[in-house]
């Protein structure tokens, strides 16, 4: 019985991680080959990148409020890879100050896809984001 349960466990985890978004560890922020940056000032934006080109989506967040940005789905994965995410510290030295969450992507297959970001406190019961950003990405 336990064997079957473990098999189901592995199958479910494998299935989920295979079809949904995952993120990498983010300790390496030294890459410099990104060519496009969007600062998140617009709620919707079009991005054009070349194959194998990297770009950053930079979104303002106040981590000290418990809020952060997260990708709502994994629809982008057929065209883009999420190389890394990290947060740039605020320059004011104040607690609760705005920071910048950076999501670094790479174009891996030609086509059009969409990046949808939600901003929320992850433990809130209503699960309704207080802000959203959408980027239509064309990999050429």
């Amino acid at each position, binding site marked *: 019985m336990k064997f079957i*349960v*473990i098999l*189901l*466990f592995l*199958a*479910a*985890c*494998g*299935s*989920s*991680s*295979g*079809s*949904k*978004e*995952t*993120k*990498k*560890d*983010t*300790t*390496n*922020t030294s890459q410099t080959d990104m060519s496009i940056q969007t600062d998140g000032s617009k709620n919707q934006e079009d991005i054009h990148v070349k194959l194998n080109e990297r770009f950053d989506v930079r979104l303002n967040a*106040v*981590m*000290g*409020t*418990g*809020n*952060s940005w*997260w*990708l*709502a*789905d*994994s629809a982008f994965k057929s065209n883009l890879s999420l190389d890394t*995410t*990290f*947060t*740039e*510290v*605020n*320059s*004011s*030295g*104040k*607690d*609760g*100050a*705005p*920071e910048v*969450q950076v999501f670094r992507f790479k174009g891996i297959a030609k086509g059009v896809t969409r990046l949808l970001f*939600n901003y*929320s*406190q*992850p*433990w*809130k*019961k209503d*699960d309704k984001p207080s802000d959203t950003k959408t980027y239509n990405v064309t990999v050429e």
Partner: protein
Amino acid sequence: MRFPKKVQGTLLFICLLTIQSFAQPGVNPNLKLAIQPQLPQKYLLREGNAPAAVKTQLLTQRSMISQQKLLFNVGFTSVSGKNIAQITGDKDVPTAEVVRIKQFATTRVLNPASLNNIKIFLKLCIASGKTYDARNNGYVSPVKNQMCGNCWAYGAVGVYEASYKRINGGSFINASEQHAENCVDGDCTGGNAYKVFEWMVNNNKNLNTEVASPDAGVNQACPGGTPATNYYATDWGIVDPSGDINKIASVADIKAALCKYGPISVSLWVTTLFQNYTNGVFNETPSNYAAPTTNHAVIIVGWDDDKGAWLIKNSWGTDWGEDGYMWIKYGTNNVGKKACWVIAKKS
């Protein structure tokens, strides 16, 4: 292997039940080590209704927690897997400000009223003890919920409320973070808790009540006049003996300060993993003592040497963490920077 969404949801639930069963006493101890502690029932139930993307995120985070043998759990949500690097370029409290505060902290003398008041607490807390929880002494006011980037005001006012209760007894007071925010150098876009203490003590200012000045989630002008409260403070100080506000205070110094003055305001580094904390001992990243970065202010209200951790009170409501609290490992996520205390005036 891929399954339809409904089947995935069912299997995910089975995964969680499996994790629960392995975490039971008497079951494979290695698995137990990797996935402890158990996810509290309220988070387990809530997660059943979470979006598929959220469940996947949590599986990723739990996998990382298991691989790294971390001691806490995450729940319910959404946010990314292991996250957030602290990139270089840390901006501390400006040097001139550090020097100014240091001068104050190292030359100050407690006023006689304060000396008398802190004796009350000394009897109830032993810095060399293995555990302490100020909640058990009835000193910690209820967990609140900040409305903007004013965690620093909550970190300060919560400490003040604890000191007030210790010194004056009676019921908890509910002092106004908004009032502090309105009148101190700091606002909805950030600030530093010690500024509230400095403003109260140096200017003999008192805080208003939460009812009179609730957190509006926006910046407001400092009102004129004096609130009709006795929420004054007589002294404040920096925990680290050097008086350096940017330094992470040692475990021993924080314990001593906690026993001497009551709950302590500290800063730490919040990440998305921190935001997803549900229970256990949070031990994400070793502190960077050379150049600690912080982005959030909380309150240390106790410790447990068996856990090797501080008990902190957050200001994100009771639906976060362990009813609004977190156990955080000593020496992680830069906890203990900007550690400072305040002493309420006896009415």
